[in-house]
């Protein structure tokens, strides 16, 4: 149990006794984001657990922040939810002050300072921010719990990050793959290919990790004016776009094994 109530430990003998309160728990699950040339995919499973107990089979870990930014959180769910709430509040203040949405790189820097402000009582959360940069390129920013961050092409975090990240190194960065002379690795992966890698990553993680499963949510952000790239043929897709003519946002939901 995460919260030990003061005085709940029976005093069986004399001598000094120490009581302690642990404000953190670890709620499992895994998140993943991959950036393409003009799109970004941000995904997470929906299981929330505490030890061997499943608290819920549907607790979203991936959140839409603006028309072009999506934030995935993983670690201590209560901190994650509170952190997203606070980021959204800061983004709303920015809108009121500047009459526009904050750009992605600025949100990344904002998240860094919000995390570092809590340097000595951190939000116990690994964040991955995905979306579209001002120049129309797909972007992924990954953070540690105290705000150290980096822009990357892909990143996995959470319970099954050790399972997924080396697979991504191989399939996204083509690590340890040498090409025959005269050939070359593709410079940008297609959206359909990226989505199939995300689904494979989560089905693999579900197979081998007990804290991953139940459901998969994949957010797709398309840059302004870019084609649908086959998204219209995908089953169970919901469009979340708010302003026509801008970036388009979709969410794709899939079932994962429940055992």
């Amino acid at each position, binding site marked *: 149990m995460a919260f030990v109530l003061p005085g709940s430990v029976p005093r069986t003998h004399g001598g000094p006794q120490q009581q302690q309160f642990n404000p953190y728990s670890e709620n499992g699950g895994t998140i993943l984001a991959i950036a393409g040339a003009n799109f970004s995919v941000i995904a997470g499973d929906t299981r929330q657990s505490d030890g061997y107990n499943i608290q819920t089979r549907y607790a979203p870990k991936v959140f839409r922040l603006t028309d072009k930014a999506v934030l995935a959180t993983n670690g201590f769910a209560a901190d994650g939810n509170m952190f997203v709430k606070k980021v959204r509040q800061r983004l709303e203040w920015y809108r009121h002050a500047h009459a526009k949405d904050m750009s992605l790189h600025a949100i990344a820097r904002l998240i860094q300072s919000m995390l570092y402000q809590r340097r000595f009582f951190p939000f116990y959360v690994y964040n991955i921010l995905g979306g579209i940069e001002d120049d129309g390129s797909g972007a992924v920013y990954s953070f540690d719990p105290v705000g150290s961050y980096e822009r990357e092409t892909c990143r996995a975090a959470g319970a099954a990050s050790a399972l997924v990240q*080396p697979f991504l190194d191989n399939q996204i960065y083509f690590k340890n*793959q040498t090409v025959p002379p005269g050939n070359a690795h593709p410079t940008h992966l297609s959206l359909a290919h990226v989505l199939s890698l995300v689904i494979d990553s989560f089905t693999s993680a579900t197979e081998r990790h007990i804290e991953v499963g139940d459901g998969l949510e994949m957010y797709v952000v398309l840059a302004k004016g870019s084609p649908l790239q086959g998204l219209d043929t995908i089953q169970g897709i919901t469009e979340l776009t708010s302003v026509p003519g801008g970036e388009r946002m979709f969410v794709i939901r899939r079932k994962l094994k429940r055992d």
Partner: protein
Amino acid sequence: MSIMDYNGGSVIAMVGKDCVAIASDLRLGNQALGVSSNFQKIFPITDRIFLGLPGLATDVITLKERFRFRVNMYTIKEEREIEPETFAHLVSSTLYEHRFGPYFCEPVMAGISKTPSGGTKPFIAATDLIGCLNFAKDFVVAGTASEKLYGVAEGLWEPDLEPEDLFETISQTIMNAVDRDAYSGWGCIVHVITKDKVITRTLKGRMD
């Protein structure tokens, strides 16, 4: 940190179509300090059985010699080569003899066994440090990079791979797994075992 992670190292075995493969890294370390880049963890037991021993290096060497001795005694008494299934149980019982003071190794074995009808069947197995057997139908992993190996293998492996495809699959799996593990790496070795030959290849890897 566990005594099992003291020297580092990882092993994986996979099943293919009428073939099996076993691979390991070549690192020997003293915690984070690299000591050797040519430390063998996979040993031939018979012409078609290989045994991988990741774990505490001193026990790797002791167990290698113990299994050599026990298999030799078996061969002399039975006047035939040991079958992979039998060998797996020999490994299991040898480790369980030390139930309350175990060798800190998690053996992984791969071989081709004979069927009663005269055919052959690929065989892989792994045990924990006290000899609990795991006869998997797809792949088995052990060592400091085991989590990473599970993730990549689950993504890359498919049933009925031909020997050359199995070689590529197991090689990509171990290379990408050990590159994310500080305690494994420094090159790899891969053995692909078919019913009539063994292909052994040493792979160059990242040296950091």
